[in-house]
């Protein structure tokens, strides 16, 4: 069965306020549960804030370490799921129900599946 990664992108600004967080957590718990019901093998994580990211490059043999994400973008990677779905439409259906979509977006990326030798 094809595998898809759902990349959860939140808006840098205009997300839920501190008061709204508990309700937001609840929505995400319910959402994750619904995905797990569809695929018991579901994996996923919430990522810590992009302020705590560090980027590594090696250029001309020199290791460069910089504070922050690989690119400054208006939407920030907040988390991911990897889920088995029979086809893209099912994956898109899951993505459309993610709590983030009203103020962010979800990228649906197929995961490389290597053919059996």
């Amino acid at each position, binding site marked *: 069965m094809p595998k898809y990664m759902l990349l959860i992108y939140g808006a840098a600004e205009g997300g839920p306020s501190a008061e709204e967080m508990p309700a937001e957590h609840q929505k995400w718990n319910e959402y994750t549960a619904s995905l797990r019901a569809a695929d018991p093998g579901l994996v996923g994580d919430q990522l810590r804030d992009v302020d705590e990211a560090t980027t590594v490059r090696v250029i001309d043999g020199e290791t460069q370490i910089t504070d922050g994400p690989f690119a400054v973008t208006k939407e920030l990677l907040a988390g991911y799921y990897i889920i088995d779905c029979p086809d*893209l*439409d099912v994956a898109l259906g899951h993505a459309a129900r993610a709590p983030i979509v009203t103020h962010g977006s979800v990228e649906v990326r197929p995961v490389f599946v290597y*053919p059996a030798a």
Partner: protein
Amino acid sequence: MGPGGGWRSQDGDPAAVAERVFREERGGVLAVLIRQVGDFQLAEDAVQDAFAAAVATWPRDGVPTNPAAWITTAARRRAIDRLRRTRSLADRTDRLAELARLDSQEHAVEGEQSAVEDDRLRLIFTCCHPALGLPARTALTLRMLGGLTTGEIARAFLVSESTMGQRISRAKAKIAGAGIPYRVPTDDVLPDRLRGVLAVVYLIFNEGYAAAAGERLVRGELCSEAIRLGRLLARLMPDDAEVLGLLALMLLHDARRDARVDDVGRYVALDTQDRTRWDQGRIREGLRLLEQALRRRRPGSYQLQAAITALHVEAASPEQTDWQEIAALYGRLAELEGSPVVELNRAVAVGFAAGPRAGLELLGPLLADPRIAGYQPLHAAHAELLRRAGDSAAAGEAYRRAIELSGNAVERAELEQRLSALRGG
């Protein structure tokens, strides 16, 4: 698969007959084969192989009585051959098993009409899937369902053949790689997806309709292709009011195609078109379909646009056009899909129904709207209303602006003529 049809000498060169049959049957065969082999590229390659076989054997054995069935069976056999030789497909074993099963069926349901039509619906929805970019959807739809070659599509959209070829290849690769399913969408997303299909078909039609005189031979093909697709959709989904509405709209526009450009290639405005050059057959059909659509009492954008066009063609003369009703319909269309272009058309209609000053009032906010500021017809309409309101100086400026923005030689010539008519020259 014996000498079913026989070979009549007046059918012409066997290779040419095979080519004609393939062009006619290819869409339906591909639709079925893609479902059976589970892959666009494999299905296309297999059909190509079958074509080569047909060219080789039909002159000898005669054209089969059921060419589509012959082609489908031959293509499936060649798909099996190709699949055996391919090592890398993930579910190769499953696919081979399924194909072998189909091949050994005693009671071939090959070419059974309703089964083919189900597959053609699957093919249309897949080609128009929103995960594909709009240019890709358009190209793929024309290639898989239309009768056009890659080269013909390329010329119609004014890109090189290799560019168009790549666009189509990438689309097929995405369908395979991202797992776009080969199915009619589930009910929860069907209305949205159908809108997407209709949008692709209408886009194809407009590309052909807007073609300038020099490109008409090639691009006019697009109108015919779009109408063919529209007819296919109407046959497959006869209960959908917007499907009928779109076909009606295209037929009513297409009926006037020959009158839009005069014998020396100049653009002819609606109010001065030679109405004897309108195709009355297409008009009658379009009006009948519109009526059918409206009876379903599910109004929509294509039906509204068709109703507006119907009012234009039904007027006995341009002076007798029911501009008031047209303005009202544009008003309803604006409610459905408030776009600046719809507002522009409404302003023009109001300009005829209630006088140029009323039209200019509605046009005002549009001139400041960045979405439409660079749209040539806005300034052409502005110029017309100013001229009729008696402000020649401002009208001249507006015509000049329109000429600057026009990307079409035939259009520009018409605008230049109106500008010089202003000066009395």
